[in-house]
């Protein structure tokens, strides 16, 4: 009797673990199957081209199509990365990021603060403040490009005029592209900052109101510190986006005048257009290097969220 029950126990145990093993195996198969589509796309269009890019940098593209590319080791990297062309392009990219990112955040925050009050009809203002999210880079660029046009544009008529015209002026072209970009991103910046503001509990703000803190002090001492994760996020993501700016440049200045708006992405595009794959690849590696620093910061934030999630 006792031995009997022991045997049945044993049998069911074996059966259970077998079933469990089967389930494990099926789950593993299913898991890989569900990841397969994404992994396929990533392998073909992210990882393969990423590594291929370094490889391409080792080969100099021949001056005439049809000739084989020549292996030059690190020579091309050294040559391109120390050239004035690259240094200029790199500087332009950084200046562009400095012109657009902080200004975008500050203006977005200003709009969010102004719209974050209980007034009748404030909803309409909020909609207007976020309206530029509906504009694409191309829409914004064509609008500003035409508005700045010396013959038909409104802005020259309003007195905003230089000689040569703003977009052809080495001094002002990048600034004009930056203003276009800031305007186009304003809606997004406003939305992000607003949601950050709304995430601050009302009680905290009310408590400081009761304390009699002046609005300015309240902003610096309470609101801004509580908003800092949002601002930090906007800063990192905004910088990444700024370093990948392309459409505005292509539509407004084509990298000119005299390469004054030749941001890295546009330099890559130009090298690619001239069928100089080797040079384009080296420039792309440089772009990756810069964004890597920024994305590492972004990953830190994401990672923290992963831990929260678990």
């Amino acid at each position, binding site marked *: 009797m006792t031995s009997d029950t022991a045997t049945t126990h044993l049998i069911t145990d074996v059966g259970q673990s077998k079933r469990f093993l089967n389930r494990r195996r099926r789950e593993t198969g299913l898991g890989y199957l569900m990841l397969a589509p994404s992994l396929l796309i990533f392998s073909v269009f992210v990882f393969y081209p990423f590594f291929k890019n370094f490889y391409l940098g080792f080969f100099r593209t021949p001056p005439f199509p049809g000739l084989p590319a020549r292996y030059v080791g690190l020579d091309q990297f050294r040559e391109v990365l120390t050239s004035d062309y690259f240094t200029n392009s790199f500087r332009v990219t950084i200046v562009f990021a400095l012109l657009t990112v902080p200004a975008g955040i500050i203006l977005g925050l200003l709009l969010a603060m102004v719209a974050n009050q209980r007034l009748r009809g404030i909803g309409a203002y909020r909609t207007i403040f976020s309206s530029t999210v509906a504009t694409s880079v191309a829409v914004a660029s064509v609008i500003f490009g035409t508005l700045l046009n010396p013959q038909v544009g409104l802005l020259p008529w309003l007195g905003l005029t230089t000689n040569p015209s703003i977009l052809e002026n080495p001094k002002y072209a990048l600034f004009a592209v930056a203003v276009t970009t800031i305007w186009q991103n304003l809606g997004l910046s406003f939305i992000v900052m607003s949601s950050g503001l709304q995430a601050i509990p009302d009680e905290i703000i009310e408590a400081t109101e009761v304390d009699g803190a002046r609005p300015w002090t309240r902003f610096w001492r309470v609101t801004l510190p509580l908003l800092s994760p949002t601002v930090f996020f906007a800063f990192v993501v905004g910088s990444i986006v700024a370093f990948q700016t392309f459409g505005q440049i292509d539509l407004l200045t084509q990298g000119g005048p005299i390469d004054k708006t030749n941001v890295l992405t546009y330099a*890559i595009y130009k090298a690619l257009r001239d069928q100089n794959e080797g040079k384009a690849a080296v420039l792309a590696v440089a772009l990756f290097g810069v964004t890597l620093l920024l994305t590492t910061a972004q990953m830190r934030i994401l990672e923290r969220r992963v831990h929260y999630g678990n």
Partner: protein
Amino acid sequence: MATEFIESVSKPAVPIIDLVVSEEDRVAIAKRHRRRRASIAIRYVFLTFLAAIILFPIYITIVNSLLTPLQIAARPPFFFPTKPTWGAYSDAWNAGHMSLYLMNSVIVTVLIVTGQIVTATCAAYAFAFLEFPLKRTLFIIFLATLMVPFEVTVITNLTTVVNLGWYNSYAGLAAPFMATGFGAFLLRQAFLGVPRDLRDAAALDGYGHWRFMVRVAVPLARPAMAALAVFSFLGAWNQYLWPLIVTKDSRYRTLQIGLRQLRATSLDQVNVTFAGVVIAALPLIILLVIFQKQLVRGLTAGAVKG
């Protein structure tokens, strides 16, 4: 600020208090009221001022699309279309190929959004509900894709697409974007919020993984799905570099590249360019008005813990 607003609305209480306050106090109260009303007026003026600056480029674009090229070049300029002409719209729509570009943009965007939602849902489900070897490593690989800017892969991707025979086609426009590491991450977080008991209960009811995913997990993760949809929609719709280099004629050009073509046309058709801009912006404006809530969630999905 909120309390001030409530006070300024609940004015009927004031006359009762008036009976007990002195003449001096009454003057002071009236002064304070006036000041408060002035401060509210100033706020509206400031808000309207900001709104006007932001809307000005859009407003002037709409006005110019309704003017003739001569009127646009006139000085002083027209700030209001006295005799609106709609010809620029039909020119942009037909001769400017905007109808074709619009259709191309819609097709490519639908392909990308659908593709991303499907691949991200599957991947996120695997990461959230299944156990298998190398899970953590694979998740890190997914996150690693976020570190590679598309511009870096563009050189080889162009060669790949040409070799696949997809140059100048919808497949070529959409294929590289059919998967998303960010989307998989976002949905995984949402799936992790689905109570474990629910999975056990569903298993007792004989639900397999597919049925549980479609019937339970996906509906529960709807806000995150909507956020991802909006996010990938905006990304796909606004693409510029890739459609520029992977298409060669108007048959497959998207709206954004179509605008580039319109901008290149001569100044005596500048009203057509403006009409093209309005046509290109309109679908997004309409969608944003309808899906404002999802939009805000989609855009802030990464910014604020949700």
